[in-house]
């Protein structure tokens, strides 16, 4: 197994590393780059806890070989906070709506919602449900998470 050289941009910073090719994007993000906000739940793309934005789209980072991420732009939950540590409207809204219980699904959930709001700042409830349908949450029953995305949508509209 020959090591490969990979360059990718994560949360705006370029990282270049040499690594075994049988590692996944999630492994490199968590273990090498210390973005531990990326969570592993199932390893087969069925829970969405490891969701990151790859070139703007939510993907399961457990289903991406690190070599496949070469040259890509990745955003993890750590990349959502503002420069001065201010929270993203989705992060504020998740707190306000009581959308957080154990918190393990939350980074992935917020990133799926972020991808939705980027494309559609005023989504309907059905679109919100669809956008987070690849993110399992075992605590909340989703209701307060859906409310949070609605609140965030309004917050973003107010800022613009």
């Amino acid at each position, binding site marked *: *197994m020959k090591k490969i050289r990979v360059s990718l941009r994560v949360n705006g910073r370029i990282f270049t590393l040499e690594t075994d090719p049988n590692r996944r994007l999630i492994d490199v993000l968590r273990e090498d780059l210390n973005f531990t906000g990326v969570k592993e739940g199932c390893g087969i*793309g069925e829970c969405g806890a490891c969701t990151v934005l790859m070139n703007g789209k939510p993907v399961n980072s457990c289903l*991406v*070989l690190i070599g496949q991420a070469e040259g890509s732009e990745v955003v993890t939950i750590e990349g959502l906070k503002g420069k001065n540590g201010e929270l993203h409207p989705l992060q504020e809204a998740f707190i306000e709506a009581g959308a957080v219980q154990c918190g393990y699904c939350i980074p992935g959930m917020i990133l799926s919602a972020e991808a939705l709001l980027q494309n559609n700042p005023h989504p309907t409830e059905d679109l919100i449900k669809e956008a987070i349908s690849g993110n399992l949450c075992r605590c909340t029953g989703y209701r307060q998470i859906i409310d949070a995305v609605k609140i965030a949508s309004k917050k973003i509209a107010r800022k613009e």
Partner: protein
Amino acid sequence: MQEFDFVKAKSLDHACTMLAGKRGRAKVIAGGTDLMIGLRNHRLSEEVDTIMDISGVGELAYIREEGELIRIGAGTTHAELALSSILWEAAPVLSMAAKSIGSPQIRNRGTIGGNIITSAPCADTVPALLVLDAALLLRRGESVRQVQIADFFEGPYRVKAAEDELLLEISFRRLRDGAKSLFDKLTRRNALAKARMNIAVIALQDKNKVVKDLRISLGSTTPIPCRFTDAERLFLGKVPRREDFLKAGQIISSEMVEKSGYRWSTDYKKPVVEALTAAALKRVLKAE
């Protein structure tokens, strides 16, 4: 996780040259939504020592309209299929199938080519492509061949393609004017769910309700995915009768039992195949 070398194809030519050079010792990864699970579960054949990534090959990702023909690059993702206005207009049955797959994350990575090559019995795009009579374009080294999708499958998870052959394109004629199509899927939950069974139908009737064209395919039903031509013939050239909807379902369910044998799930699947078929036909066909 299994061990392997990794190469990234820079272009289509590069990919085909490398595949040819590896003589079956390389496995292609596109979206990875199936292969990554295989690697995790140590299911990669020992013959294979290299994974070749084609996810960055832009030449494989397109949806084009050329007159009556729709051509789709094998590397097109399900999300791209589901968003394509060309497709919604020319072949909504495929748009619906793509939209129903897994989750946004899966649709953003998984490709139509991968869905066909993996050929899981529950693959959602396959019944849609069968009723579209799609043709597949494959390349091995420098030689290119075309094959009808109906002739491409060998069994569950087995296709008639060489290890070093690459699927390039899927093409089909757009639906004829006035044709109706439908994709429906039965699942245990409303997202992140494999199809327990799925069905794709295309139907065309003239103004007197005479059926000019009818194509039916159901997934997770037979070992080799197929159209159910006996059931289709029941309607061709005739004005549909309501009682034929269920009859068509029964023809299909008998064919299922004949081809798959009576399995643990047949007690459930048999009546449901009949019901799904009848319900789908009822929705796309105007009866007497």
